[in-house]
Protein backbone atom coordinates (compact mmCIF):
# COMPACT_ATOMS: atom_id res chain seq x y z
CA UNK A 1 0.00 0.00 0.00
CA UNK A 2 1.00 3.61 -0.35
CA UNK A 3 0.81 4.27 3.37
CA UNK A 4 2.99 3.55 6.34
CA UNK A 5 2.57 3.87 10.07
CA UNK A 6 3.69 7.12 11.56
CA UNK A 7 4.28 8.52 14.98
CA UNK A 8 3.67 12.05 16.05
CA UNK A 9 0.54 12.78 14.08
CA UNK A 10 -2.66 13.69 15.91
CA UNK A 11 -1.04 12.96 19.29
CA UNK A 12 -4.09 13.93 21.28
CA UNK A 13 -6.58 11.96 19.19
CA UNK A 14 -7.40 8.86 21.22
CA UNK A 15 -8.06 5.69 19.34
CA UNK A 16 -7.28 7.16 15.93
CA UNK A 17 -4.98 5.24 13.61
CA UNK A 18 -1.95 7.21 12.53
CA UNK A 19 -0.81 7.24 8.90
CA UNK A 20 1.11 9.48 6.61
CA UNK A 21 1.24 9.24 2.83
CA UNK A 22 4.20 7.53 1.26
CA UNK A 23 4.99 10.24 -1.27
CA UNK A 24 7.64 8.13 -3.00
CA UNK A 25 5.01 5.56 -3.96
CA UNK A 26 3.00 8.13 -5.89
CA UNK A 27 6.00 10.04 -7.25
CA UNK A 28 7.38 6.87 -8.84
CA UNK A 29 4.43 6.59 -11.25
CA UNK A 30 5.56 9.11 -13.85
CA UNK A 31 4.55 9.31 -17.51
CA UNK A 32 7.35 8.66 -19.92
CA UNK A 33 8.22 9.48 -23.48
CA UNK A 34 7.15 12.97 -24.41
CA UNK A 35 8.52 14.47 -21.18
CA UNK A 36 12.02 14.19 -19.74
CA UNK A 37 12.34 13.23 -16.07
CA UNK A 38 12.23 16.94 -15.19
CA UNK A 39 9.10 17.55 -17.26
CA UNK A 40 10.92 19.16 -20.19
CA UNK A 41 9.55 18.76 -23.72
CA UNK A 42 11.36 19.43 -26.99
CA UNK A 43 10.40 19.45 -30.67
CA UNK A 44 12.09 16.06 -30.95
CA UNK A 45 10.35 14.47 -27.96
CA UNK A 46 6.94 15.70 -29.11
CA UNK A 47 7.52 14.60 -32.69
CA UNK A 48 8.67 11.15 -31.62
CA UNK A 49 5.92 10.65 -29.03
CA UNK A 50 3.04 12.50 -30.69
CA UNK A 51 0.80 9.44 -30.18
CA UNK A 52 0.81 10.26 -26.46
CA UNK A 53 -1.62 13.14 -27.08
CA UNK A 54 -4.13 11.36 -29.31
CA UNK A 55 -7.47 10.87 -27.55
CA UNK A 56 -6.28 12.30 -24.23
CA UNK A 57 -8.46 14.70 -22.27
CA UNK A 58 -7.14 17.87 -20.66
CA UNK A 59 -7.61 16.21 -17.29
CA UNK A 60 -5.46 13.21 -18.26
CA UNK A 61 -2.68 15.39 -19.65
CA UNK A 62 -2.73 17.67 -16.59
CA UNK A 63 -2.58 14.63 -14.31
CA UNK A 64 0.55 13.37 -16.07
CA UNK A 65 2.15 16.81 -15.93
CA UNK A 66 1.48 17.08 -12.21
CA UNK A 67 3.34 13.81 -11.63
CA UNK A 68 6.37 15.65 -13.02
CA UNK A 69 6.01 18.64 -10.71
CA UNK A 70 3.87 20.93 -12.84
CA UNK A 71 1.24 22.91 -10.94
CA UNK A 72 -1.74 23.32 -13.22
CA UNK A 73 -5.29 24.49 -13.43
CA UNK A 74 -7.73 23.67 -16.21
CA UNK A 75 -9.91 26.35 -17.69
CA UNK A 76 -12.55 26.35 -20.30
CA UNK A 77 -11.77 28.82 -23.05
CA UNK A 78 -14.16 31.75 -22.94
CA UNK A 79 -13.07 32.60 -26.45
CA UNK A 80 -13.31 29.47 -28.54
CA UNK A 81 -16.63 28.30 -29.95
CA UNK A 82 -15.64 24.68 -29.37
CA UNK A 83 -15.26 22.90 -26.02
CA UNK A 84 -11.54 23.68 -25.97
CA UNK A 85 -9.87 23.36 -22.58
CA UNK A 86 -6.72 25.16 -21.49
CA UNK A 87 -4.21 23.69 -19.05
CA UNK A 88 -2.43 26.64 -17.47
CA UNK A 89 0.94 26.06 -15.76
CA UNK A 90 1.74 28.33 -12.83
CA UNK A 91 5.28 27.13 -12.04
CA UNK A 92 6.98 26.80 -15.42
CA UNK A 93 10.74 27.28 -15.63
CA UNK A 94 13.59 26.18 -17.92
CA UNK A 95 13.07 22.51 -16.96
CA UNK A 96 9.28 22.38 -16.74
CA UNK A 97 9.07 24.38 -19.93
CA UNK A 98 5.37 23.99 -20.82
CA UNK A 99 3.43 27.20 -20.19
CA UNK A 100 0.00 26.22 -21.54
CA UNK A 101 -1.70 23.35 -23.29
CA UNK A 102 -4.83 23.82 -25.37
CA UNK A 103 -6.90 20.66 -25.89
CA UNK A 104 -9.33 21.25 -28.73
CA UNK A 105 -11.97 18.86 -30.08
CA UNK A 106 -11.42 20.63 -33.41
CA UNK A 107 -12.53 23.89 -34.93
CA UNK A 108 -14.44 24.69 -38.07
CA UNK A 109 -11.54 26.93 -39.12
CA UNK A 110 -9.20 23.95 -39.45
CA UNK A 111 -11.70 21.37 -40.66
CA UNK A 112 -12.94 19.98 -37.34
CA UNK A 113 -9.88 17.85 -36.64
CA UNK A 114 -9.00 17.48 -32.92
CA UNK A 115 -5.65 18.83 -31.82
CA UNK A 116 -3.49 19.59 -28.81
CA UNK A 117 -1.43 22.78 -28.83
CA UNK A 118 1.54 23.06 -26.50
CA UNK A 119 3.13 26.40 -25.60
CA UNK A 120 6.66 26.40 -24.19
CA UNK A 121 8.96 28.95 -22.60
CA UNK A 122 11.69 28.99 -25.24
CA UNK A 123 10.95 26.42 -27.94
CA UNK A 124 7.80 28.03 -29.33
CA UNK A 125 4.47 26.32 -29.93
CA UNK A 126 3.63 22.83 -31.13
CA UNK A 127 0.39 21.46 -32.45
CA UNK A 128 -0.26 17.73 -32.45
CA UNK A 129 -3.08 17.12 -34.91
CA UNK A 130 -5.15 13.96 -34.71
CA UNK A 131 -5.48 13.53 -38.44
CA UNK A 132 -3.77 13.61 -41.78
CA UNK A 133 -2.27 16.74 -43.30
CA UNK A 134 -4.65 16.45 -46.26
CA UNK A 135 -7.73 17.00 -44.07
CA UNK A 136 -6.32 19.94 -42.15
CA UNK A 137 -7.09 23.47 -43.36
CA UNK A 138 -4.38 26.05 -42.84
CA UNK A 139 -3.32 29.37 -44.28
CA UNK A 140 0.31 28.29 -44.01
CA UNK A 141 1.03 31.16 -41.61
CA UNK A 142 0.72 29.24 -38.37
CA UNK A 143 3.61 29.88 -36.03
CA UNK A 144 3.19 26.55 -34.26
CA UNK A 145 5.15 23.56 -35.49
CA UNK A 146 2.57 21.07 -36.78
CA UNK A 147 2.70 17.32 -36.20
CA UNK A 148 0.21 15.14 -38.06
CA UNK A 149 -0.60 11.47 -37.64
CA UNK A 150 2.12 9.32 -39.10
CA UNK A 151 1.34 7.40 -42.24
CA UNK A 152 0.56 3.79 -41.44
CA UNK A 153 3.13 1.36 -42.77
Amino acid at each position, binding site marked *: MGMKASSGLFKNTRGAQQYELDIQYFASKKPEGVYSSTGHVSPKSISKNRDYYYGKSAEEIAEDMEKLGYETSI*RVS*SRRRSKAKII*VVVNYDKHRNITQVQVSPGSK*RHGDIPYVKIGTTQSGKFKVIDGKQSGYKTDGKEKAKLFFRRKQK
Partner: protein
Amino acid sequence: MKYLIPFVGMGKYKLLQSTKRIIDLLELDKIDFEVEVWENEDVTNKFPWTLLKASNGITFYFAKDKLFKIVVEEATDVALENGIHVGMPMSEATKIDVGLNFDDWNEDWESPLGYWLEDDLDTNNVMSISIFIKEAIDDEEFNKYEW
Protein backbone atom coordinates in the same frame (compact mmCIF):
# COMPACT_ATOMS: atom_id res chain seq x y z
CA MET B 1 -30.34 45.28 -39.75
CA LYS B 2 -29.55 44.31 -36.14
CA TYR B 3 -26.35 45.67 -34.61
CA LEU B 4 -23.92 43.95 -32.29
CA ILE B 5 -22.72 46.36 -29.60
CA PRO B 6 -19.58 45.13 -27.81
CA PHE B 7 -20.05 44.55 -24.07
CA VAL B 8 -23.77 45.41 -24.40
CA GLY B 9 -25.63 43.01 -26.69
CA MET B 10 -27.77 42.98 -29.81
CA GLY B 11 -31.01 44.98 -29.69
CA LYS B 12 -33.27 43.50 -27.02
CA TYR B 13 -30.80 40.68 -26.42
CA LYS B 14 -28.52 42.05 -23.71
CA LEU B 15 -25.43 40.46 -22.21
CA LEU B 16 -25.91 39.24 -18.61
CA GLN B 17 -29.62 38.57 -19.18
CA SER B 18 -30.98 35.25 -17.88
CA THR B 19 -31.58 32.15 -19.99
CA LYS B 20 -35.34 32.51 -19.50
CA ARG B 21 -35.30 36.12 -20.70
CA ILE B 22 -33.45 35.17 -23.91
CA ILE B 23 -35.78 32.19 -24.51
CA ASP B 24 -38.78 34.52 -24.09
CA LEU B 25 -37.28 36.93 -26.64
CA LEU B 26 -36.56 34.14 -29.13
CA GLU B 27 -40.12 32.86 -28.79
CA LEU B 28 -41.45 36.37 -29.20
CA ASP B 29 -39.40 36.72 -32.40
CA LYS B 30 -40.60 33.25 -33.52
CA ILE B 31 -37.05 31.93 -33.79
CA ASP B 32 -36.52 28.21 -33.20
CA PHE B 33 -33.59 27.13 -31.05
CA GLU B 34 -31.86 24.08 -29.60
CA VAL B 35 -30.48 23.83 -26.08
CA GLU B 36 -27.07 22.30 -25.42
CA VAL B 37 -25.44 21.89 -22.00
CA TRP B 38 -21.69 21.66 -21.51
CA GLU B 39 -21.05 20.15 -18.09
CA ASN B 40 -17.38 21.31 -17.92
CA GLU B 41 -16.67 18.62 -15.33
CA ASP B 42 -12.98 18.38 -16.15
CA VAL B 43 -12.11 21.98 -15.40
CA THR B 44 -10.76 23.27 -12.08
CA ASN B 45 -13.65 25.64 -11.36
CA LYS B 46 -16.66 23.63 -12.45
CA PHE B 47 -19.51 25.65 -13.86
CA PRO B 48 -21.77 24.18 -16.56
CA TRP B 49 -22.56 26.26 -19.61
CA THR B 50 -25.85 26.37 -21.46
CA LEU B 51 -25.95 27.21 -25.16
CA LEU B 52 -29.04 28.33 -27.03
CA LYS B 53 -28.42 27.64 -30.70
CA ALA B 54 -30.91 29.69 -32.66
CA SER B 55 -31.98 28.67 -36.13
CA ASN B 56 -30.87 32.05 -37.53
CA GLY B 57 -27.19 31.20 -36.94
CA ILE B 58 -26.78 33.00 -33.61
CA THR B 59 -25.60 31.15 -30.50
CA PHE B 60 -26.12 32.47 -26.97
CA TYR B 61 -23.68 31.27 -24.27
CA PHE B 62 -24.69 31.21 -20.59
CA ALA B 63 -22.99 30.40 -17.30
CA LYS B 64 -24.52 31.01 -13.88
CA ASP B 65 -27.72 31.76 -15.81
CA LYS B 66 -26.12 34.87 -17.31
CA LEU B 67 -25.57 35.53 -21.00
CA PHE B 68 -21.82 36.06 -21.40
CA LYS B 69 -21.26 35.71 -25.16
CA ILE B 70 -23.17 36.03 -28.43
CA VAL B 71 -21.70 34.41 -31.53
CA VAL B 72 -23.04 35.15 -34.99
CA GLU B 73 -22.22 32.67 -37.75
CA GLU B 74 -24.75 32.76 -40.53
CA ALA B 75 -27.17 35.58 -39.84
CA THR B 76 -27.10 37.99 -42.77
CA ASP B 77 -29.14 40.70 -41.06
CA VAL B 78 -26.64 41.24 -38.23
CA ALA B 79 -23.53 43.44 -38.28
CA LEU B 80 -21.23 45.40 -36.05
CA GLU B 81 -21.86 49.14 -35.98
CA ASN B 82 -18.79 49.69 -38.15
CA GLY B 83 -20.39 47.55 -40.86
CA ILE B 84 -18.34 44.37 -40.44
CA HIS B 85 -20.53 41.31 -40.98
CA VAL B 86 -20.26 37.57 -41.58
CA GLY B 87 -19.27 36.86 -45.17
CA MET B 88 -17.32 40.09 -45.61
CA PRO B 89 -13.77 39.63 -46.96
CA MET B 90 -11.26 39.72 -44.08
CA SER B 91 -9.16 42.19 -46.09
CA GLU B 92 -12.10 44.62 -46.00
CA ALA B 93 -12.68 44.05 -42.27
CA THR B 94 -9.04 44.88 -41.47
CA LYS B 95 -9.37 48.11 -43.45
CA ILE B 96 -12.50 49.11 -41.52
CA ASP B 97 -10.97 48.26 -38.14
CA VAL B 98 -7.22 48.84 -38.35
CA GLY B 99 -6.89 47.71 -34.75
CA LEU B 100 -7.79 44.11 -35.65
CA ASN B 101 -4.95 41.87 -34.63
CA PHE B 102 -4.49 38.15 -35.29
CA ASP B 103 -4.00 36.19 -32.05
CA ASP B 104 -1.80 33.23 -32.82
CA TRP B 105 -2.66 31.24 -29.69
CA ASN B 106 -6.44 31.56 -30.08
CA GLU B 107 -6.27 31.67 -33.88
CA ASP B 108 -8.75 34.47 -34.32
CA TRP B 109 -8.80 38.23 -34.81
CA GLU B 110 -9.27 40.44 -31.78
CA SER B 111 -10.40 44.02 -31.88
CA PRO B 112 -9.58 46.63 -29.24
CA LEU B 113 -13.20 47.71 -29.71
CA GLY B 114 -14.34 44.49 -27.96
CA TYR B 115 -15.11 41.73 -30.44
CA TRP B 116 -13.50 38.66 -31.97
CA LEU B 117 -13.65 37.53 -35.58
CA GLU B 118 -12.90 34.14 -37.08
CA ASP B 119 -11.83 33.90 -40.69
CA ASP B 120 -12.78 31.14 -43.10
CA LEU B 121 -9.61 29.69 -44.59
CA ASP B 122 -11.43 28.53 -47.73
CA THR B 123 -13.00 31.86 -48.61
CA ASN B 124 -10.88 34.35 -46.62
CA ASN B 125 -14.14 35.87 -45.42
CA VAL B 126 -15.36 36.62 -41.90
CA MET B 127 -16.77 33.32 -40.57
CA SER B 128 -18.03 34.43 -37.14
CA ILE B 129 -18.33 37.48 -34.93
CA SER B 130 -18.38 37.26 -31.13
CA ILE B 131 -19.31 39.88 -28.58
CA PHE B 132 -18.96 39.17 -24.87
CA ILE B 133 -18.79 40.53 -21.34
CA LYS B 134 -15.56 42.32 -20.40
CA GLU B 135 -14.45 39.50 -18.07
CA ALA B 136 -14.29 37.10 -21.03
CA ILE B 137 -11.27 38.94 -22.42
CA ASP B 138 -9.15 37.33 -19.70
CA ASP B 139 -9.67 33.57 -19.32
CA GLU B 140 -8.34 33.64 -15.75
CA GLU B 141 -10.73 36.38 -14.69
CA PHE B 142 -13.60 34.76 -16.55
CA ASN B 143 -13.01 31.33 -15.00
CA LYS B 144 -13.38 32.75 -11.48
CA TYR B 145 -17.08 33.20 -12.33
CA GLU B 146 -17.24 36.25 -10.08
CA TRP B 147 -19.27 38.22 -12.55
